[in-house]
């Protein structure tokens, strides 16, 4: 299916290194709409929404803020730290959203397993259901991310994948 001109133009921006080095899509050759659709489906299968995942990530980042890059216990067996750099980064979607250049690192205290995301990642996941392309610098696999955050969806028959809950 051909993408709309808006979508095609957006994909071009995402593939280019105009906003982040190497672009947002990494080595992923799938069309943008397909990437988003696949990740959104993965999230739906777990009975969750992208907003909820982004909300949890934002909570963790908020917990680390004000501690100037040192580790903070965020509860739930997670430790977080947020490192900030000067400057702002713009959202590639055509709307005026700007994020600070802040990188949050979260690690599970018992396993030492760690994940990193930026403020822009939170925005992209929450607002655009975009988890970035395979092998790009800040790609997050929806399933791995959900497991890491320890989120669980309401396990109803609807979430089995056939009849999703309406967005409201």
């Amino acid at each position: 299916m051909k993408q709309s001109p808006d979508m095609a133009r957006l994909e071009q921006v995402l593939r280019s290194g105009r906003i982040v080095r190497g672009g947002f899509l990494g080595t992923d050759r799938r069309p943008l709409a397909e990437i988003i659709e696949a990740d959104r489906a993965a999230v739906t299968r777990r009975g969750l929404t992208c907003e909820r995942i982004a909300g949890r990530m934002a909570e963790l980042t908020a917990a680390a803020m004000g501690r100037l890059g040192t580790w903070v216990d965020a509860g739930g067996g997670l430790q977080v730290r947020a490192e900030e750099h000067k400057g702002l980064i713009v959202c590639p979607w055509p709307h005026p959203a700007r994020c600070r250049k802040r990188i949050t690192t979260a690690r599970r205290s018992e396993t030492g397993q760690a994940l990193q995301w930026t403020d822009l990642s939170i925005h992209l996941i929450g607002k655009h259901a975009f988890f970035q392309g395979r092998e790009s610098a800040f790609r997050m696999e929806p399933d791995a991310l959900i497991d890491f955050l320890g989120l669980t969806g309401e396990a109803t028959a609807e979430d089995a994948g056939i009849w999703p809950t309406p967005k409201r």
Partner: protein
Amino acid sequence: MAQAVLAVLAISGVAAMLALILVVAERFIARYGSCTIDINQGTRQITIEGGKSLLNVLTEEKLFIPSACGGRGTCGYCKVTIREGGGPILPTETPFLTADEQEQGLRLSCQVKVRNDLVIKIPEELLSVREYTAVCEKIEDLTYDMKRFILRLQEPDRIDYVPGQYVQLLCPPYPGSDEEVYRAYSIASDPAETGRVDLIIRRVPNGICTTWCFEHLQEGQTVRINGPYGEFRLSDNPAPALFIAGGSGMAPFVSILHQMEHAHDTRSVRYFYGGNQVRDLCLLDEMKRFEEHLEDFTFVPVVAEPGPEESWDGRRGLVTEAVSEEFDNLADYEAYLCGSPGMIDAAIKVLKSLGIDKARVYYDKFA
């Protein structure tokens, strides 16, 4: 046979005619002729061929309007006031302009196409901004993720700036980044040396410009900068001053301390400089030298969590905690901040609780 020839001729003829019409149309329709842009009521007048965006035209004329997105209309920085000739506000601009700004005639210069004479107004300080070519004379490692780049100016070969101001460094396209971008860095050199600009740059993971500086920029290479910009500077008020910085936020203070040394400034200065570990701190020796040479200067490095192999007998904790432990009341002080936005927010909170007047807290908003 005859028909084949006729067919080819007829189709070629029609195609050629259409092409001709398009070329003629392009000449008459897509040409805007020469347009005159009047800047700040005749301070400067430029005449150019119309058809390009106002931002491009101004950049070509060496008038640098700060812009972070490179003319895509997503950052909303490149606002200029257009008094006459700007045409209607485009849908791509409206998200960035408040009703007040629209009333005043503010526009995004990257979205406005020059199609007729314009009368515009830009901030006075931008008129003194120049573009410089410089040779990167030396690259020094300051810490594991910070370097100092010493630039020797070529053309023009000297720069006038107020310590505390910043310049924009042009990062050319390189593998992984396909466009020129500009990034702002504070000047960290002695203002007496007018032919030299030092930049202290901390590596940003996957950052476009810092990756270029750390991996591609070589000593002896020519770079381009423009500037100076910014309002951050030492005030004329002799009140005691409190500097708070973290990481590469050290940069403007180096310049300011040099300035104080030359001017035999006797005001009292306390400088709190924070890092997570000892390895995050830079230029400690240089600060020691300033302590010896300046009348009343104390440098207080603060480390949050010294690493297991690091020895540290200085202060521990966050830089903001160190400030609130040290002082009970800052009402007489002026505060100067440079660091990450998070540090600035945290510092402002602490300073307010210590009774400092908000109008006497200075920091650069380019962050």
